[in-house]
């Protein structure tokens, strides 16, 4: 997993927020970073797993 320092994580999260038109306030940044760190660990585990070729995306869930 790629190692990032706190400033780099903060910069990434702010940039990602900008992409979806979210103004991430300074007072929200630390808890968001904490949660994003946990999510990134889970995401990395999922991305690292090789799924056999026959697996297909889930269909759209029913509303």
């Amino acid at each position, binding site marked *: 997993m790629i190692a990032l320092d706190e400033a780099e994580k903060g910069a990434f999260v702010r940039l990602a*927020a900008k992409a979806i038109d979210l103004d991430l306030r300074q007072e929200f940044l630390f808890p968001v970073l904490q*949660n994003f760190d946990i*999510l990134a660990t*889970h995401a990395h585990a*999922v991305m690292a797993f090789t*799924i056999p070729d026959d*697996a297909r*995306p*889930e269909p759209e869930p029913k509303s």
Partner: protein
Amino acid sequence: MNEIATQDAATIARAVRQGQVKAVDVVRATLARIRVIDVRLKCFTRLLDDEAESDARVVDAMIARGEDPGELAGVPFGVKNLFDVAGVTTLAGSKILRDRKVAQHDATVIQRLRAAGAILVGTLNMDEFAYGFSTENEHYGVTRNPHDPERIAGGSSGGSAAAVAARLLPITLGSDTNGSVRVPAALCGIYGLKPTYDRLSRDGLFPFVNSFDHVGLFASTPQDLACAYEMMRDPDPAAERRADARSGRFATDGLRVGLLGGWFEQHAGEGVLDAVRKVANAFDGAERVELPHADLARSAAFCITAAESGSLHLENLRCRPEDFDHATRARFLAGALLPAEVVIKAQRFRSWFRGQVDAIFDRYDILLAPATLCSAPRIGQQSVYHDGAILPVRANLGLYTQPISFIGLPVVSAPVASDGGMPLGVQIIARQWREDIALGAAAALARKGVVAAKAFDANMISTDKPVFVEGGA
């Protein structure tokens, strides 16, 4: 009269149908008891006195005319406040939804319970937008565990579970996305059912994660659980299955049982493992079995949950972030930032994982696993210490439930006593669409005395006792 208010649904319905008690008297006694006990527990966010009394009079009038008011005649019930109730604003545990218009119609599952003669008496507390396992709600307060009010009831359907555990209501509805029925059912010592994904209608349910949202329910007996579930489900051509769950056709020695190891043993306290072994030992020839990559199933569920729910709330996160519960806000914001590739890969993994687990059900009728890694934590408690590791308690209460709801399998969480006094839960997991097997197994275990709802002791919530709060709302 107050005694009738603490009975199970089957007893109340029988008494009402036979004219031994009037539905309106059941409702009055129930509401009176709630007003005394819920001051301490905070299960309810709203009581529907007038509507409930009016509905009860309709049931009594039908009985007076010799008509059949339904199998749940006069049985009071409550719903987690993310279900639409006609004339009531659907809050989903939030402040943000307070200024929405009132719902025009009842959720489909509420309509069906009412059609069976059940009486809706109130709405119940939950984690904000169902994102949590503790029901420590910043806006509506902490729901306390009826067996020890210094402890959480679990969540996110905490009000629903605590109301049944305190015998305030015999049946309540909740929702389960990652464990929100099974976790509070376990921590409160009652039965919870999370049916197969899409089995019960989600019409009129405020969504959390559309991929995983299930309507679920709570009761103090497996028979009540089965009865209420049957009233809410679509008609099933396999009518014999409906009867099986309640008639007790299933016996503990007739089922092929797998005891889940690996992921489902890690981090669990010895008391938790003892509880699952005790249940497994009630079946002849239970075998240990592992679900491949259950850890990844939990990780994938975690990612899809965060991303879908973050997306759902994006507009309010942009416009009024200060109105969210601080913990929920951080989770939604982080989820909204997750790259799409992760969600797509997680959904592909889901498809693969479902295939692996389906193959395991060729060898087993049910699988057993703990519902939680520990009994109810204290209110405000941040971590649990086990096996040399400190684990954040809230995120990890869904450790053993998330891999199962990830693929939508039906599960009964059955209550088991522990040495420490606080109850635990065991997940009885069946293959898709076979709720009847999970319910039948729970009923068979109850007949053997292996599982049982924990008795409620009203002295436990005496207002004379100090209430310990560590950083709680």
